[in-house]
């Protein structure tokens, strides 16, 4: 098989070919130029981003016969040997196959000898994370102070599996995932060099399919070439990548959002008949929903989603109809299904079931709105919520033992629109000046329309005299102004005892409530079966009802 896959054929041969890893290339090139070359390097990063390639380029740069330079010539015997993997002084070791401590001991034996031809003896250990703990530990001393002619290069996808003692002895380079644009660019170069006819859109699809890995993208390209030959049509690429038709996906999401289970089942049948992998179908649904969510939360989603205008418009239209909570819930459920599908003995059923379930979900309600509703309800029920302190005693019910029918909710206290303000004001005054506060409790709020506040007292009462004292009046006005946060004109006026239309004072309200409560407590007690029995047996009568909770309030 003379054919070399593209990923091997186009393996980068110098630092400038290393796409997307400029930070590594530049650092290493500078190190070589200034002669400050560390003796141990660790290259980490995802699959197919250039770790092994970088290791080979570095080895070439160090051993090139044209002299130590950041640009290996790729022509001298040394460079060629490294490219073909036969170098005497550059040992590329498969860390995953030679994992034992014995392999490392052998390496240590080897390291003492000077390089046969080249400048350095270089050990490239690929997949180094698979070395055993003992092997790593056996390497520690050597790695700390190797002979001058030795260099180590480690490459791995899983740096977290490497002991810290090894990490601290190496210069570490993190390789990044390669952005789609750069992959596309490089693919274009390669496609041109291979004389392929392929559109930019197809290259974009291929690049995206690689998910930041050059090798994955090139494998895909290889596959595309194998299928289509030198001239590549967009449709073929889409079919080859097993992508589900976009229309089908959009229809599915629309059906979910419209709670149309029947249509969903039809769509699943279509997907099944087309022979798509159900897992991939779900995966692409999730990706599309991601797009929807992004449309929903970001004003201009152009940068985050690279889609054609038309597709974007369609997404935005769909997004408008859905709420963010719904979308997130659907994504969560679909992701769960995706995991289940791989283990399911009957995947079609799993998918149908899940989609029907999703379509039958009750629409979500925004939590914020719910809380607002609750608050509103609370306010309506409580009547006077701002300072419920004086009311609390009345609210705590003293229910005798079980068996009593639940009590009717207390009749709401008659509230005038200004009673809250009045109660709040009294409460505030009570906190600052308890004496004045208790005086106010007896007053009847005749007018509570700030800045005008008028409070009535029975004519000639002691309280009125007290309050009319200039000092007290002054204090009260200050407190009232602080409460209403505006200028207040406070007046106290005398009212006739018989004047019934004036609103009741706080004390009166409380008393009224208390009597009301006592009355109802008595009624409750009368109905208690135990009490009835007692009355009957002893032929007694009820003298007094004492609420048991009173002492604790």
């Amino acid at each position, binding site marked *: *098989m*003379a*054919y070399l*896959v593209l990923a*091997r054929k186009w393996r980068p041969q110098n630092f400038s070919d290393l796409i997307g890893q400029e930070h590594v290339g530049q650092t290493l090139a500078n190190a070589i130029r200034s002669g400050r070359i560390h003796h141990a390097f660790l290259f980490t990063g*995802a*699959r*197919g981003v250039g770790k*092994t390639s970088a290791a080979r380029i570095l080895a070439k740069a160090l051993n090139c016969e044209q002299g130590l330079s950041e640009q290996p010539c790729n022509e001298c015997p040394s460079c060629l040997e490294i490219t073909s*993997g036969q170098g005497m002084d550059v040992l590329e070791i*498969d860390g*995953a*196959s030679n*994992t034992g401590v014995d392999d490392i001991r052998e390496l240590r034996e080897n390291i003492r000898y000077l390089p046969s031809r080249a400048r350095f003896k270089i050990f490239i250990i*690929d*997949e180094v*994370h*698979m070395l055993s703990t003992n092997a790593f530990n056996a390497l520690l001393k050597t790695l700390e102070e190797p002979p001058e002619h030795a260099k180590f290069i480690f490459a791995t*996808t899983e740096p977290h599996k490497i002991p810290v003692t090894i990490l601290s002895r190496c210069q570490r380079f993190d390789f990044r995932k390669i952005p789609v644009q750069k992959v596309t660019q490089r693919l274009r170069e390669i496609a041109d060099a291979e004389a392929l006819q392929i559109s930019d859109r197809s290259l974009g699809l291929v690049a995206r399919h690689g998910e930041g*890995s050059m*090798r*994955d993208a090139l*494998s895909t390209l*290889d*596959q595309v*070439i*194998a*299928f289509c*030959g030198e001239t590549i049509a967009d449709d073929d690429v889409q*079919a*080859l990548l*097993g992508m589900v038709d976009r229309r089908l996906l959009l229809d599915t999401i629309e059906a979910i959002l419209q709670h149309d*289970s*029947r249509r969903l*089942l*039809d769509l699943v*049948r279509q997907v*099944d*008949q087309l*022979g*798509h*992998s159900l*897992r991939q179908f779900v995966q692409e649904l999730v990706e599309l929903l991601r797009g929807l969510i992004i449309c929903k939360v970001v004003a201009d989603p152009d940068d985050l989603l690279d889609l054609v205008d038309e597709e974007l418009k369609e997404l935005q239209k769909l997004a408008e109809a859905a709420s963010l909570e719904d979308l997130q819930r659907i994504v969560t459920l679909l992701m769960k299904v995706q995991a289940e599908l*791989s283990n399911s*003995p*009957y*995947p*079609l*059923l*799993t998918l*149908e*079931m899940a989609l*029907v*379930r999703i379509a*039958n979900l009750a629409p979500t309600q925004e939590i914020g709105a719910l809380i607002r509703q609750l608050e509103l309800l609370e306010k309506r029920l409580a009547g006077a919520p701002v300072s419920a302190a004086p009311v609390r005693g009345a609210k705590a019910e003293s229910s005798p033992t079980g068996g009593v029918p639940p009590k009717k909710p207390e009749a709401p206290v008659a509230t005038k629109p200004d009673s809250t303000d009045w109660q709040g004001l009294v409460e505030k005054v009570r906190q600052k000046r308890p004496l004045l506060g208790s005086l106010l409790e007896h007053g009847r709020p005749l007018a509570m329309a700030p800045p005008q506040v008028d409070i009535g007292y029975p004519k000639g009462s002691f309280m009125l005299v007290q309050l009319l004292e200039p000092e007290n009046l002054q204090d009260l006005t200050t407190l009232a102004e602080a409460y209403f946060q505006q200028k207040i004109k406070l007046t106290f006026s005398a009212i006739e005892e018989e004047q019934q239309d004036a609103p009741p004072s706080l004390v009166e309200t409380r008393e009224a409530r208390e009597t009301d409560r006592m009355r109802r407590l008595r009624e409750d007690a009368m109905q208690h079966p135990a009490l009835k029995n007692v009355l009957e047996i002893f032929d007694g009568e009820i003298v007094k009802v004492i609420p048991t909770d009173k002492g604790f309030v």
Partner: protein
Amino acid sequence: MNFDQILGHDRQIEILRRALNTDRLAHAYLFHGPDGVGKRLVALALVQATFCIDGQGCGRCTACKKIAHRNHPDIHFLEPDGNSIKIEQIRNLQRELNFRPLEASCKVGLIDHAERMTVGAANALLKTLEEPTGNALLILLTPQPQRLLETIRSRCQPLQFTRHTHARIKDVLEQKLGLAETEAHILAALSDGSFKKAFGKDKELYLEKRRDLLKTLTGLSSGSILPVLEFAEYLASEKADLPDILEIFQAFFRDVLLMLHHQDESRLVNQDLMDRIRQVTRRESTTAVLDKLEALAAANTHLERNVNRQLAMEVLLLRLTADSERHI
């Protein structure tokens, strides 16, 4: 077995053919797709086409015959040893691949159930998979590609295999096994696009017993608990067939679900029990059916985890016979 003799997978075969003809065959392939759809057959056909003298897989030359008899010296089969493919097996393969091919143009390594490679084994394969020494062709087969290491996947050319259509399996069942149409339909529907499943199914269980089982199941009611417990005991005693029986139940409730949504009747599995399905459909709601399907899934999980069988079956049946009104 050459490419022409394989049913379906036209696209996949076309891809491989073109790669062969244009001499662009990669060194590592990953065939993934459901179990029993013919990945291995395609892989062998590919090898045959490369080894055969006339490049087609004639079936008459020595190379073709040796492949058919599984004794070609240049093909190395790797299968899970026990539960997994071990690092020792991978090392043996690597050693073999290092030699020159004896008869053919290259060495071939065929790794079946690649997802069962241990972590060590998978990692040990990485370097070989990226740049095999000499001429080598590695083909990995797996029904669950997502369980492979990312690094393995990225080094292979993936080739996805899809399920066979229901019609194709049905036709083959009718022709090869001489089944009646309804029976072929039921088996095909339950095999989920896999020939291995379709042919491996216990015909008696799936065709005859299925009817009795479903009749008993639908005859149960939450009112009388004794028959429910008896049926649970019976189910628990069918140790070997239990997963299949649960699958039958699942298919039945799926039918009900489809019926509830007025789907085309030809999509249903239990064509011979339409009356029963209609009857159950009338008294069930969508949520209730979904709950029942979930109960079945839960029972499957329980069985996998070695829960007391009888207990699991009792719980399952109680949930299956629960009144649908309660769910509304």
